[in-house]
């Protein structure tokens, strides 16, 4: 699946962005299927905004985001939902778990949303074991630490089929050991699906073998 940015420019940041050089904003960019993309950006340059534009939950921009050559606005609600179940997954910076559900239920919700789940229950347990969160699976997500929640959000993003995975500072609250475990798992899951990802972060890192690097 092709993702293309055509002179994308956030309306609230417009003046600020036009004063400096950006590798993404107001450019014509194409992300090729299966490529690992890193977008490095200092705070306040619109990192999260970009992820929200890509995932189509914010619309205050000029230019367009094209999914398979068609702008997001050309997809209706049910088509959008189908893309989010089958082709696009996301890890939000603010994680967005349901507090009224347990950690496992949060993952299950995403898994069984599709009437034919992509992952088995055992696979979920295996991923939880790899990220050291098996012991918190049955706890209410409200009671988890931010790092634990982050790992649950990562697993949730990986239980569905996808061609693109969007990640917004996915390891911000993980220690080095857990970060490398999570990065290895993500890379593995992307490879099995032949999927690509777009990761935004503040600094340089060596978590993945990136194909492309952008400066926001």
């Amino acid at each position, binding site marked *: 699946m092709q993702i293309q940015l055509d002179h994308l420019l956030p309306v609230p940041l417009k003046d600020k962005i036009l004063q400096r050089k950006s590798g993404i904003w107001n450019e014509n960019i194409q992300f090729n299927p299966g490529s690992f993309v890193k977008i490095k950006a200092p705070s306040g340059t619109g990192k999260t905004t970009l992820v929200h534009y890509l*995932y189509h*939950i914010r619309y205050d921009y000029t230019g367009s985001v094209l999914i398979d050559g068609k702008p997001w606005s050309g997809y209706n*609600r*049910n088509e959008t*939902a*189908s*893309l*989010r*179940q089958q082709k696009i997954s996301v890890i939000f910076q603010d994680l*967005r778990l*349901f507090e*009224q*559900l347990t950690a496992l*239920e949060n993952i*299950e*919700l*995403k898994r*069984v*949303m599709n*009437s034919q789940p992509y992952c088995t*229950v055992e696979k979920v347990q295996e991923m939880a074991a790899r990220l050291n969160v098996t012991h918190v699976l049955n706890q209410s997500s409200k009671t988890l630490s931010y790092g634990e929640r982050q790992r649950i959000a990562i697993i949730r993003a990986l239980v*569905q089929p996808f061609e693109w995975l969007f990640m917004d500072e996915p390891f911000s609250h993980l220690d080095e050991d857990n970060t490398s475990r999570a990065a290895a798992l993500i890379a593995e899951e992307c490879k099995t699906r032949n999927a690509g990802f777009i990761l935004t972060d503040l600094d340089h890192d060596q978590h993945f073998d990136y194909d492309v690097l952008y400066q926001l």
Partner: protein
Amino acid sequence: MQSFFALLRKIIRTGVGKGRFFMASIGLGIAMVLILIALQANTDFNQLLYSDKNQNETADFLVINKKVTNSMMGQPEKSVFSPTDIENVRKQPFVQAVGLITSSQFKVVAQAPGELHFATDMFFEAVPDSFIDVKEDDWKWNPGDRTIPIILPNDFLNLYNFGFSLSQNLPQISQETVKALPLQVVISNNLVSETYTGHIVGFSDRISSFLVPATFMNWANEKYAGTTTAATSRIVIKTADPSNPALVKFLDDNGYTANQDKLKFSKTRVIVQTIVSVIGFFGLILLLFALLVFSMFIQLVIASCRKEIQLLVTLGTAPRQLQRYLLKQFVPLYFIIGILSLVLVTILQYFAAGLLAKHDMVVNPLPGIGTIIGTVLILVLVYIVNVSTVRRYILQDQ
């Protein structure tokens, strides 16, 4: 493992305002019962009116005459039906047939034979044979016959047996005896007088008059009065439904009167219809309010879970999945209410049929097809209102 809907149940709480939902459900139930009762009562009433089992034969014929008022007294021509009047009656949709009652234009004196010492001035009338409820082979007259077949009103014999004979110390007589009695009938005009034998062939409940065959009447009118076209002051009509309010209105509008007893049914019918309509009307109003509360309840549920619904959609839940989930929470209850209402009305109908049967009125002990269609229509309406509310608010929320 939990299903998607089981997880949704933990996220989208439908417990908000449960009391209101409960009240609305009761409201829907009462509304449905009222509407179904109204429909069923209507079916029953129609069955009582039109079904063959309930048809009593006298209900089909009405004898109509113009009202005699004080201002008309002494002017008999004013109580006569003109050809236009008769044509107008014939044209009415509820009139199946019209028969003219011809009255005799000559004097008649009847005398009972033997010991009875009974003699009276009287008159004859004639109607077309198809309007007579007495089927007798003897009911015919050919020119030259000296015996005239006569039909008496049943009421007349009763008046004699239970009024006159008791007070005068005369014997009571049975219908058979009367039929066997040869009656002397003297017919005269100012010039001639002739004696015939009257033979009572039957008793009529339908037409309160002394009837002779039309053939005799025409012959005798011509012979004794020199006319065949006597003015008509009474007519008999055949109608499918003497309780038809349109018929009663027609009679009133034209200043006609008929056997009041038969028309009384019409008043009952108007009253029953009014009561049924009022019940149905309240049922409809209640249904509207129940629908209003239901859609407000759905609105409340969606509004109270706005953030959760938004996140679900963000994670990729399709609006149609949410819609199906929400409908699944409410719709089964509506069907249960619908079926319970129908069962209740069936039970009521069963008892009503039992009660009516004791009074020789036959209605079907099961609810009519109209009632069942009514149930289905109400449920469809409730479903449509729910679907459109859910769709509107879920879409609005994104």
